């Protein structure tokens, strides 16, 4: 059992990473990775939403009528996302404005619904919570890596603090969404190189 929990927790972070292996949540990972701060808040929001939604759906799993299960799941996910959005509006207003529509769009993030359908509906609450948290963390980790390079090379700063000397000319291409896709591709490449069994013949 412990072995299973460990696998539940670690698999989504590397071997079954939702972005690089399942290729889900690409849209938001391109949009919110211009600055590290935004990416961190987005990562945290998604971790909370996936974790809590999976937990709640798992608690309800035996009572949910099968015919309307997608709708019930959506209600739970939407509620979590709106709660996160409301809390951000109250305590981190400028970041909420910066992330604009993407917090609301967590509702449509396939990672959340995908994990609920594939895992939370058929597993006990604790493993479901861990699975949700781990998938959110796997998503967040890629977001933070991409944002790290984009802010460093695109603005010469990290979390708003200047790390590269003033003489560094910011690379504007890195700020634009295509570069996020290229960076994402590089991460996928590195991961496939390390993990040979992910390579497709």
């Amino acid at each position, binding site marked *: 059992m412990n072995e299973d929990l460990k696998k539940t927790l670690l698999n989504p972070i590397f071997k079954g990473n939702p972005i690089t292996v399942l290729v889900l949540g690409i849209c938001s990972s391109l949009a919110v990775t211009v600055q590290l701060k935004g990416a961190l808040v987005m990562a945290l929001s998604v971790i909370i939403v996936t974790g809590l939604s999976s937990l709640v759906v798992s608690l309800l799993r035996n009572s*949910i009528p*099968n*015919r*309307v299960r997608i709708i*019930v799941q959506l209600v739970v996910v*939407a*509620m979590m996302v709106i709660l996160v959005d409301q809390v951000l509006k109250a305590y981190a207003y400028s970041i909420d404005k910066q992330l*604009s529509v993407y917090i609301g769009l967590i509702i449509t993030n396939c990672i959340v619904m995908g994990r609920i359908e594939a895992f939370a509906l058929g597993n006990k609450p604790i493993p479901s919570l861990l699975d949700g948290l781990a998938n959110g963390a796997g998503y967040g980790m890629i977001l933070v890596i991409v944002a790290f390079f984009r802010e460093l090379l695109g603005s010469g700063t990290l979390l708003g603090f200047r790390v590269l000397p003033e003489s560094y000319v910011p690379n504007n291409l890195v700020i634009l969404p295509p570069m996020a896709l290229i960076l994402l591709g590089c991460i996928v490449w590195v991961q496939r190189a390390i993990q040979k069994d992910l390579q497709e013949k």
Partner: protein
Amino acid sequence: MNTNSNVYTIVYTTIIVVVAAAILAIAAMALKPKQDANIKAETISQMLAAAGFSSKEDLAKLGNDQILKMYSDNVKTAFLIDAKGDKIGELETEVSNIELQDNLKQENKNIAAGDPQLPVYVFKKDGAEINVIPIYGAGLWGPIWGYIAFNASCTEIVGAYFDHESETPGLGAKIKDEAWFREQFKGETVNFSKPDDSFDIVKGGAPKDDKSAVDAITGATMTCNGLDAALDTWFKAYMPFLQKKAGAAQVETEDCCGGDCGSECEGEGKDCNHEHNHNHQEG
């Protein structure tokens, strides 16, 4: 229990939805005061950015209290005007109780109905007055709004700031994100001779000799059209006020400086400025 029966399904979904709604309602009520304070500080910082006191990025680093204080320290007076441009009320500017006329959506309806209560925020910067007015309209996906700062005689725009609720990031959202877009407004004027179409945002580039037009943003045609319409509507609503200000400045210039010294008088002649304010209050 048969979880697939119709009755069960209907009762179950009803309960889930009601519970979710209750949780959200409680959260919204509990967080509202804090959110309102944030929105107020945000509105004020947009005005300060338009008036050129600080960049929006720097203002974002300040706390709400500091922004309110900065407003209170720099604002001279804030008042409401009616459709004829006459003053009909004051807005409190004390830091503990700052009043704003920030329900722009409502005022937008009132403008259409012909009975608006429009705010004018008068700031003091380097000895000169800056008049800041809001604009509001419909973008592509949701509302867009902004603040336009005029010089003392309202004959020249000295700054602008725009914001939006849900324009497309990277396209329509550029009205807020791109500094060059709002920088263009500096030095432009409102075309008093065309009250229905007093400002243009031109696709393909504004003519160089047109002082009431700026370039539109590529890929953001709908947002720019919306902003153009918003500027026209609100400038029209403010037109009587703007013209009065411009007219008063004209008369003052001629009266106290003999009409020869032109615009120099405005900045240098302190008496002139003083008289001008005085006159405005009477008018």
